[in-house]
């Protein structure tokens, strides 16, 4: 009798919890970081992106100069929130640009993206598009960022992960508490980079252990890491999106592309099923992929344009494969297991 009551009360508890969850998720829309409207035309294009407005401004301005009838509503959110907006809330956006390749791939794989015009896709290299649904707009190397005083005098920058491990091991006092990297548990991009690292190199786990011993600080975003390194609070950032770093000259920051391999992130775009003006979204995307749009992305915004030759010139660059292999990383159990491993390596008792 008591047992029955207990079961009922447990069920009641879970029922309430479920209700609370439902209310919470339906009530809470995805989190927006910034919003801006460009132009004042009749044709409205809703763009949802993980890319900061400042980076996209030159391209948007150029597009609006050509299409004065367009109002471009640009919304910035984190990659997880971008995914939630499209996959769970079916938010009506006409173009979705995200640096989280795996989440974009999941949107496309799960049938939530519209086919893009064939003419737009046919010009893109095979590694930069998937199934006529997903296309890369930039390719961004994931780099090692060194602060002004990162290196002891007379020591040259590391060129491989092995050399980086040696550097950190040889100067534990110098780097203790001064190493920055993504927290894969929080950051989608960080998790993606860590998984790719673990696949590509045995040195990664040793690096994780070494960084763990040095009380590495974990970040949610590239911007925070870059800011702390630029201001000297941190000496070294591992797996930083190089495109956000201000460059070699400013603040004495040094960008190092490790020679054993350097992951290259593809920032991808898709038109979701819920789009109100999918043609307009695809048209803006076509401009983004055009030679002029790419030049504006590269020069105006400082994001590296798509460049297939870059992989020939720099054999150490490895584009992260844009295919359903990315889905494996998103599996909840796989992800949980990987993060457990990561924590075990990084946080030593």
């Amino acid at each position, binding site marked *: 009798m008591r047992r029955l009551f207990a079961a009922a009360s447990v069920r009641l508890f879970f029922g309430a919890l479920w209700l609370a969850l439902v209310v919470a998720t339906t009530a809470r829309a995805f989190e927006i970081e910034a919003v801006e409207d460009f132009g004042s035309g009749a044709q409205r294009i809703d763009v949802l992106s993980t890319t900061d407005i400042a980076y996209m401004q030159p391209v948007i301005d150029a597009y609006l100069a050509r299409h004065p009838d367009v109002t471009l509503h640009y919304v910035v959110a984190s990659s997880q929130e971008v995914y939630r907006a499209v996959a769970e809330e079916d938010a009506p956006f006409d173009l979705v640009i995200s640096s989280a390749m795996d989440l974009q791939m999941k949107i496309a794989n799960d*049938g939530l993206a519209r086919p893009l015009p064939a003419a737009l896709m046919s010009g893109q290299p095979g590694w930069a598009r998937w199934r006529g649904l997903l296309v890369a707009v930039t390719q961004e190397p994931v780099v090692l960022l060194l602060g002004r005083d990162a290196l002891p005098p007379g020591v040259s920058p590391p060129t491989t992960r092995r050399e980086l491990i040696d550097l950190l091991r040889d100067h534990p006092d110098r780097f203790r508490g001064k190493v920055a990297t993504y927290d894969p548990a929080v950051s989608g991009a960080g998790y993606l980079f860590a*998984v790719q690292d673990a696949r590509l190199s045995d040195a990664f786990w040793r690096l994780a252990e070494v960084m763990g011993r040095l009380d590495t600080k974990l970040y949610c975003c590239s911007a925070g890491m870059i800011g702390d390194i630029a201001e000297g609070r941190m000496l070294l950032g591992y797996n930083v999106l190089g495109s956000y770093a201000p460059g070699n000259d400013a603040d004495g920051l040094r960008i190092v592309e490790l020679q054993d391999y350097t992951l290259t992130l593809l920032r991808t775009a898709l038109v979701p099923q819920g789009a109100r003006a999918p043609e307009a979204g695809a048209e803006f995307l076509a401009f983004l992929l055009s030679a002029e749009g790419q030049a504006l992305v590269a020069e105006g915004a400082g994001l590296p344009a798509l460049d297939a030759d870059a992989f020939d010139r720099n054999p150490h660059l490895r584009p992260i494969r844009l295919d359903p292999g990315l889905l494996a990383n998103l599996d909840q159990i*796989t992800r949980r297991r990987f993060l457990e491993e990561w924590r075990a390596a990084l946080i030593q008792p």
Partner: protein
Amino acid sequence: MAQQSVTPSLSPVSLRRRLLLQLLLLAACLSVGLYAAVRLGADRASEATFDAVLGAAAGSLAEEVRVAEGGIAVDLPPATFSMLSAMGEERIFYRVDVDGVPVTGYGDLPLPELPPTALAPSFYDARYRDTDVRVAAILRSIRIEGRAAPLLVLLAETRQGQGAIAARLGNRAAVLGLGIFLAAIPFSLYFARSFLSPIDRLAEAVGRRGARDLRPLRHPAPSELQPFVTALNSFIARLRGTLSQTETFLAEAAHHIRTPLTVMRNEAELALRQSGEEETRARLRGLIRAADESARSASQLLDHATVLYRAEQADWAEVDLAKLVRDLVERFRPAAEMRDISVRLEVRGTLPTRSDPVLVEAALRNIIDNAVKYSAPDGLVEVVAEAVSGEGRVTVMDRGRGLAGVVEQGLKRRFRRGANVSDVPGSGLGLTIVEEAAQAMGGRFAIGPREGGGTCAVFSLPLL
């Protein structure tokens, strides 16, 4: 005769067209069949290949599921997904159930209707989200908390690549089939023609025969046409029988008329000699002339019947046309000279032909007889026999009354006479006999006005 003219107005059925159509239909069926077979085969083969890969991928996925501290651990192999998706950029869905409860992946992926056996993956087609997918299902046992629990792994992929491969192979087969069909057109034309050529040859053999040739058909024919040939031959035999009966009848009739006519003429002449009464004598002379005319007609009817009969027999022998002409002219000379008509003969060498002497003689007799008959007294009949370009040619020329503008073809018809000959007895069969004799022996006969008045008749036979 009236019945024959009521032929159906529909165009006759063409065997060749029908055969051609059937051959082409066959080729078209084969082409379509080839396309269908290849398409089906390609579908099956590519599905088997893709299933094998999908099954292996599902197997490796199932192997990655194991029990760890705190529950189920899965290390999804990204490379497996990448490879699975590589062909045709397929979409991938998966689902892992433990104890019948979805643990990870797409929890709403459709389950198989029958649970898979533990040994091999089972495959099935399903509709998931907005697309058709092929699913591989693997059932395994997993040990959780000391007991065995069923582990069900579903791995699904879209089959865009497979469809593309099957379509490509199918299209190739379609092109091949079309090629075969196009190649079949000339072959069918050729086959239809060669198949029907015995009929054409038979028709040509029958068509080439002379008008009087009633010999049975001995042309080689395929066994299917033998009944037709036999029927045709029996028809020819019947026709010949009828004809020969008619001709025998004609000959006998002529003979039976001629004998009493001769008797009648003799009696009339006798009476003429004995009678003194002028009126009776005039009547008797008229009677004698009428009897002569009738006898002549009967004789020509006999000639004609003979010509027809012998032409049909086609019993040819080697005949010297020159000698024949010489003998014939000598036989005519006395009768001609009685009317003060001289006959000049000009024969050069020998003219060997393959013919029937009776026919040739009948023909030449009629020509020379005509020339003498229509010549005025003191006239000259010239007979020339010579070899001219491969044929023996006998030319008979007179300075008689000529043809008075009547066309040659008209004169050659039976019982048709010239417009200017009513005072001379004749049956109108003479030229018909000549024409028929010439035709029967492969020769020619022509008659026309002679320059400077008179008539020129030319009878020729091929030389040996």
